């Protein structure tokens, strides 16, 4: 097992390097650049900017300098648009925000999704099943850009319970709506996978054996059915977790959280190369880490899997 983890971590290094090179090339291939302005900048201004940020070097050298600065100084470069800030500043401010609402949204969506899925599966084709499926389909067809205004309408304008936006260091009243807006569609998806997988497991031989033994239903479900049924859910949860903690542009925009989801999309639109690279790398590292974690958890849940 330890060998396996070391091997996977070793592969991560070239993977990240390929990610850097590919992202760099794709970034440069996109039309426009960080100094494209509606009011075109005079040539001497562009020349000064180009020199200041090192864009006058050949692409391969820029990539080398970029990688070297990360390794030697943990410096991910400056933002070419938000000129007072470095990529480190942007991530240091935005990531804790999305991490906070993303983690809570993850717990909420995983618990409610799995719960809903299990209830639906063990009450297959009953009213409870239809209700659970109804809720999850309803939640899935409501994208977060529809969900967010509805939440604000209800909780801010009608009831006056919650502020319509802002973050205030993650005070709970500011976290609730971002969490709901982000969690609903994930919850729906998790509920559907859980239900499908649970239905399959419930007809398998070992469950039939357990029931034949005369075990009560609750024990059958919790002790024998849930663990194998969660395998497909788990492979979804890994990437879903990364997706949630790196934020959502809609949530960040609508609720003015200052999170990293918005910063990522902005950087792409503004051609703010270093910010785009920095967040791409962050997301890449998180994906690699959590995919590894999921694979390790697999082995723990399913004794048939050996590495």
């Amino acid at each position, binding site marked *: 097992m330890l060998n396996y983890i070391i091997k996977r971590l070793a592969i991560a290094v070239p993977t990240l390097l390929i990610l850097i090179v590919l992202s760099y090339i794709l970034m440069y291939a*996109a*039309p*426009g*650049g960080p*100094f*494209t*302005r*509606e*009011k*075109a*900048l*005079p*040539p*001497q*201004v562009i020349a*000064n*900017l180009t*020199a*200041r*940020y090192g864009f006058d070097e050949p692409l391969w050298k820029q990539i080398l300098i970029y990688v070297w600065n990360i390794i030697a100084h943990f410096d991910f470069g*400056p933002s070419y*648009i*938000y*000129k*007072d*800030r*470095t990529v480190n500043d*942007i991530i240091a*401010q*935005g990531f804790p925000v999305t991490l906070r609402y993303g983690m809570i949204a993850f717990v909420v969506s995983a618990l409610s999704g799995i719960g809903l899925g299990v209830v639906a599966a063990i009450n297959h084709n009953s009213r409870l099943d239809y209700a659970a499926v109804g809720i999850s389909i309803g939640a899935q067809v409501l994208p977060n850009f529809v969900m*967010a*205004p509805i939440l*604000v*309408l209800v909780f*801010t*304008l009608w009831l*006056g319970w919650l*502020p*319509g*936006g*802002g*973050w205030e260091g993650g005070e709970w009243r500011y976290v609730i709506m971002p969490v709901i807006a982000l969690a609903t569609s994930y919850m729906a998806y998790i509920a559907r996978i859980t239900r499908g997988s649970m239905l399959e497991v419930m007809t398998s031989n070992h469950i039939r054996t357990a029931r034949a033994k005369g075990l009560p239903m609750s024990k059958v479900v919790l002790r024998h059915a849930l663990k194998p049924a969660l395998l497909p859910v788990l492979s979804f949860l890994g990437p879903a977790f990364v997706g949630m903690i790196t934020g959502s542009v809609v949530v*960040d*925009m*609508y*609720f*003015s*959280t*200052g*999170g990293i989801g*918005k*910063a990522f999309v902005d950087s792409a*639109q*503004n*051609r703010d190369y270093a910010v785009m690279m920095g967040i791409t790398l962050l997301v890449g590292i998180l994906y690699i880490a959590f995919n590894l974690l999921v694979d390790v958890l697999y082995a723990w849940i399913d004794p048939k899997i050996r590495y």
Partner: protein
Amino acid sequence: MKHLLLTTILGLSLATPVFAEKYGATGEELAADQAYSYYMLDSAKSLDPNLASSVEDADIIRSLIEGLYEEDAAGAIIPAGATSYEVSADLTTYTFHLRPEAKWSNGDPVVAGDYVYGWQRLVDPATASEYAWYMELAQVVNAGEITRGEKPLSDLGVTAIDDLTLEVKILAPLPYFPKMLTHTAMFPINKKAIDQFGGEWTKPGNYIGNGAYTLSEHLVGEKLVMTKSPTYWNAASVIMSPITAVTINDENAAWTRWVAGELDRSTVPTGQFPRLKAEYPDEVSSNPSACSYTYVINLAEGKGNAALQDVRVRKALAYALDRNIVIDNILQAGQIPAYSWTPGAMDGFTIPATDYAAWTQDERNEKARALLAEAGYGPDKPLTFTLNYNTSEGHQKIAVAIQQMWKQTLGVAMTPQNFEWAVHTDKMHAGDYDMARYAWCGDYNEASTFLDLWTSYSGNNDTKYANPAYDALMKDAKTMADPNPNYTKAEEVLAADMPIIPIYHYTQVRVVRKDIKGLPTTNVLNTWYAKNLYRIAQ
């Protein structure tokens, strides 16, 4: 419980002053709460006056740093960091007398050397300021050469005669030079802050300004908070504090948060102005703004669409575009139809009477059909071309409406195509388009900020329109005591050549709480100062 009760009573007694304060100038009674919060579409990009580039940046920097002059509610200049100036007989040397009581937030006096440092730093190639060209536009001696790295910083035409006297030399007389001083690019900089903190100097705690406010908090994407500065020379007159700028990237969310009471000033979502104006008549308003919306035509040789090189075709298209439909049915926020380029709200400028502005739309359509037929286009030889616009619901609606107008009136087949903003801009600069959506906002309150754009030597003239007569008019205007007759003539040349099709002049729609006073409504650059605001008791 006892403790809670006690603190509540204490808190209440602190919050309610015994005698209500009054606003000096008008005697209006002031409210106890003088906190102000406003919406901004995007976070500040930089709080360094030399690196700032957006409207949001400027709105904030004007509270943190004070320049030589500032604007009053109508856009005219009034003394700020300077108390007065003299200009030499040949109109090329300005001598500014600085305010002796002005202080930086670290307690240092503001001296002429701070202006010299700030101005030199703006044009320094190492700063790589996007507004370095502004100093050149202001004709300050050697600004361009220094930006191009041809001369040392010390050659810039700005000198500190003594601590309170600043001398500026410009290349040629420029009647609106003092007006250009209100721009944040021309603000002084405290060298100590930069020496000590480098690129980190604009962070809260490090920031040294000489303005009415100091920076307390800056969370990109969420909010920025400023509080009243005790060291400001006129701190006694500053009423509102703290000032909170809230970033909200969604107009609807911005509106909702205003309704929920979280903001004092916000915006009105596109297309909702008539309804919300009816609902909140005292709070919602639409004010003229120094921006124009237009379709530009690619006139570069061998590029663009050959048919559009014919002035008759361009005129036909300009005439057959019913601006009132665009404004009344799509934008619906009191925008002003544009039959010429410069907004009429610019200081000292009156919109010239271009002949087609006076016609009825039927007359314009009639004329347009005749011109197009004369140019040889009709059912047998239909005119087809493309229109580029940057992806946005508003631009799309306008493009589709105009497509229909041209199709119905002239039988012209225009195909709108949208591009992501950076691609759109890139294509325009590269001359890779037939016709393209464009908008321009003035940098200072004078018509040349608009008209200079279409000179053949302008770096932003993506039409590649070149008319020596037009260039001459604009060049001569630079040294005229009253350049307005030349501006009128320049607009007439534009209307005759029609390199662009002006569509409308912007308005700024906003919603402001009734008890907020001191926000200008007639300043077309929308230049406002937080220190002039106050909240009256209701």
